[in-house]
């Protein structure tokens, strides 16, 4: 019953908001004013193509998420009483998200933002019995409030100067004030939104919150909630069109670091969902690179760059929400079957859960940016923008470094997902789980997402022509280009993707045809002459990335513990390795520890004796009475001195 209500609510909200979004994307304008009482005043509800794009992608992920979550949560019978709270939060979260994209009134925007953050918090701590989950939830709660403080600061700044909550007055204010002021204002907003989006170094909440949440919530968080940060940044870029070059370089720099750092740490993770969380940071980095290029392109008056950058960023936002939710949902399937997320314990799941394996493979190929899947299209757009910038030689060195980083990100992602897919689904089982069954009821939304992933990969022009409307908000790039160069390139890319598929089919048919008349036998895996295929001999995830770990040792903090093998006939030994995020240790843990140490000095005040607490009260009252008296006395004294 609860499940059905939740589904109906999400579907209704999606239907209504999608209707508006589709209308806006096809050229209509949408603008409403709601009177929000004395405090809010007139609340402006306006939708442009940017809002529409984000609304549509949110709706798709929210629908697939609730479809998946309905079935997924059936496996948590012990948490039944919490189900209503959970689904209510889901509905509120979805509503807050859609609201966020429509509202153009800063106070209402902040309220919507807070609703989104709080409902996400409740969803994250669904398994509140676990200490880990609670800790992750509180970590998320604190960091999202730092984000909201920064946003409040930015909006208050504009309000004190203009006396208006309307978003339009932000651009009016920026036009009137100098470049420096508007750059600073942008940076305040950017930092606020970057915390939500998970840019390095504001990323530290993601690797805790994503693994702690139930899988459909992780999919929703990684797919759309962190994208609200991207939306915020893109909205602010629209409202503050000055300082393009400076802003572009800042975004590009932060994004390059996020992309490389995220994937670097993703590779070494032992927990599947944590690995995926670090990949979100990487993909946010890629989206950011797109935004950076678009902004720089606008600054350099290069329409191709602007279009390729912004369209790449927006398309990658959609793409990431698709393949990341698919990855989280399929890892949810794995979790349901094995009750574990430790990659090194798995193996050979592909034969027990072939559909999950195939779906995970599609998503893995997509996230690595390989053709003919959707991730390639958006990365290709970003590359196109970069190479166009290089070949028209505008500050070529910066773009060459970006190309370098993007290529490195691609290579590292390949390493990461060959590890994840290969170790989890292929080979022999490394651990005997009880009975592994594939729950087919959870698969439907996964097929839906995989379908769209392939659709974008094979028909990129369809989605790109939709994207021209939001991109054209950023100058004339969108209106010039749709029929020309970039569409032709996309035509070729789609042709090449079809060609690839055709080629694979042809070779495969040929192979079938030739093998029909040949002897096909099965045997054990070649083991250098040994015939026992013990799973102990298999490569593990840790050994797979060992050579890589050796190289990046300076960047991450590795702690190995355990016994060494010394004897000729060794006993069973146990060893563990832990990887720590250096930035997190330096930027979050260090200051927190220092603060705790400082506050610890005042521990003696809280000694648990009632008498003391009464005394504190008395002292407090005394101080609050005496301070004004003292000030008055001082003032009189000063007056007397002045009269002398």
């Amino acid at each position, binding site marked *: 019953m609860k499940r059905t209500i939740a589904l109906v609510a999400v579907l209704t909200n999606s239907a209504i908001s999608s209707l508006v979004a589709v209308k806006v994307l096809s050229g209509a304008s949408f603008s409403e004013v709601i009177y929000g009482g004395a405090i809010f005043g007139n609340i402006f509800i306006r939708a442009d193509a940017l809002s529409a794009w984000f609304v549509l992608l949110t709706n798709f992920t929210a629908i697939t998420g609730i479809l998946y979550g309905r079935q997924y949560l059936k496996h948590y019978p012990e948490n039944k009483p919490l189900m209503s709270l959970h689904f209510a939060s889901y509905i509120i979260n979805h509503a807050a998200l859609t609201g966020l994209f429509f509202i153009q009134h800063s106070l209402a925007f902040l309220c919507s933002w807070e609703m989104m953050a709080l409902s996400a918090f409740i969803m994250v701590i669904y398994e509140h019995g676990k200490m880990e989950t609670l800790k992750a939830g509180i970590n998320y709660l604190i960091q999202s409030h730092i984000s909201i403080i920064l946003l409040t600061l930015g909006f208050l700044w504009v309000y004190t100067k203009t006396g208006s909550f309307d978003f339009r007055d932000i651009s009016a204010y920026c036009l009137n004030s100098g470049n420096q002021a508007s750059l600073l204002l942008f940076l305040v907003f950017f930092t606020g939104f970057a915390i939500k989006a998970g840019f390095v170094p504001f990323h530290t909440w993601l690797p805790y919150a994503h693994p702690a949440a139930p899988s459909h919530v992780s999919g929703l968080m990684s797919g759309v909630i962190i994208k609200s940060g991207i939306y915020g940044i893109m909205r602010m870029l629209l409202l503050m069109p000055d300082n393009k070059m400076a802003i572009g370089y800042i975004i590009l720099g932060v994004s390059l670091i996020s992309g490389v750092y995220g994937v670097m740490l993703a590779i070494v993770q032992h927990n599947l969902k944590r690995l995926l969380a670090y990949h979100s940071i990487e993909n946010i980095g890629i989206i950011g690179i797109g935004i950076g290029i678009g902004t720089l392109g606008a600054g350099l008056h290069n329409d191709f760059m602007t279009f390729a950058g912004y369209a790449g960023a927006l398309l990658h936002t959609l793409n990431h929400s698709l393949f990341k939710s698919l990855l989280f949902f399929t890892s949810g399937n794995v979790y349901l079957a094995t009750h574990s997320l430790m990659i090194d314990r798995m193996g050979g799941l592909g034969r027990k859960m072939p559909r999950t394996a195939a779906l995970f493979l599609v998503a893995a190929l997509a996230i690595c940016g390989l053709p003919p899947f959707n991730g390639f299209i958006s990365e290709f757009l970003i590359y*196109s923008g970069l190479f166009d910038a290089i070949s028209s030689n505008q500050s070529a060195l910066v773009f060459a470094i970006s190309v370098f980083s993007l290529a490195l990100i691609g290579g590292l992602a390949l390493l990461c997902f060959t590890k994840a897919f290969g170790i989890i689904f292929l080979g022999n089982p490394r651990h005997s789980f009880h009975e592994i069954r594939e729950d087919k009821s959870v698969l439907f939304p996964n097929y839906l997402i995989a379908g769209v992933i392939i659709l974008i990969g094979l028909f990129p022009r369809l989605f790109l022509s939709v994207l021209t409307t939001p991109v054209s908000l950023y100058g004339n790039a969108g209106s010039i280009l749709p029929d020309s160069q970039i569409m032709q390139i996309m035509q070729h890319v789609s042709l090449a993707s079809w060609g690839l598929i055709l080629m694979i089919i042809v070779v*495969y048919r040929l192979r079938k045809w030739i093998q029909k008349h040949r002897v096909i036998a099965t*045997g054990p895996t070649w083991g250098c002459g040994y015939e026992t295929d013990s799973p102990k001999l298999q490569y593990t995830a840790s050994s797979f990335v060992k050579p890589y770990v050796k190289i990046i040792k300076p960047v991450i903090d590795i702690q190995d513990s355990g016994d060494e093998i010394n004897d000729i006939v060794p006993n069973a030994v146990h060893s563990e390795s832990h990887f720590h995020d250096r930035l997190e240790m330096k930027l979050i843990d260090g200051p927190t520890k220092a603060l705790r140490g400082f506050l610890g000095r005042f521990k003696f005040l809280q000694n648990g004796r009632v008498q003391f607490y009464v005394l504190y009260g008395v002292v407090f009252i005394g101080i609050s009475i005496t301070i004004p008296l003292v000030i008055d006395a001082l003032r009189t004294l000063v007056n007397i001195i002045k009269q002398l």
Partner: protein
Amino acid sequence: MLSLLLIILTSFFFTGIIIRSKSILSGRKGPRIFQPMLDIFRCLRTGSVYSKTTSFVFQIAPTVYIATILMAILFIPFGNKQGILSFNGDFVFFAYVLALGKFFMIIAALDTGSSFEGMGASREALYSMLIEPAFFILMGSFALLTGYSSFAGIFGALHYGSYVSYGLGALASFVFVTIALIENSRMPVDDPKTHLELTMIHEVMILDNSGFDLGLILYGTNLKFALYGAIIANFFLTPGYQLYYSIPIYFAVQVTFGIVIGIVESFAARFRMNHNPQFILMFTSISMLIFLGVLLVMGKLI
């Protein structure tokens, strides 16, 4: 179309040239030039043994591998004659489509559940990841130099520049030779003729492949060599000249490339595995140097 035909033609004898030149350098007569191809044909005609651990991934991987290489060949131009497919930024597709094939080969190796193949897969994944940026920076340098961002555009315009572009072309060919060596896991990164599984990369990944699949993989190596040879040849083709002029140049470059690999394999020792990353990363630095060189030539370096 022309480049596709030429590359396939070259692939028939390329490995033969390497083996022949290695034999001659070590004082033997060596097999015929077409012997490796005949071996591949024999593989293609035999039956197969599949490990009972493997799944559909293992069955489809060699097919995807060869298809991606064939797809990549379609982008290679011949002088100023475009490849079958050509568009701005086509080398991004080129690199990523090759990566797709590699992805499948790596997971197919993990599919067998063998400790050796996992090891080979791990090494291949790492080394191909490390070489990726070098390729992109190199292509970026030529995009900057010529103002085009497609294979055909770059190679069509390359020779109209200054004499420095020939120098850069020579340096770039050097990097491409090494990329080809690394991508195909040859010396000094890997020795395909070693018989110790523990020290191999690519060869150890395909221990379990047999019959048609093994034939496809082996032929894939030939094609990949011919593919990189064709890219290198493009640096030396002179656009505008007649085919009877450029086709011999093309074959001369390919044969030289084969002989160079033979020489390298005869005289260079294989690196210790843990030195490979440094060696491979060096080529990223060299391509970065080429990039700076281009910036210098164009007067963009302040």
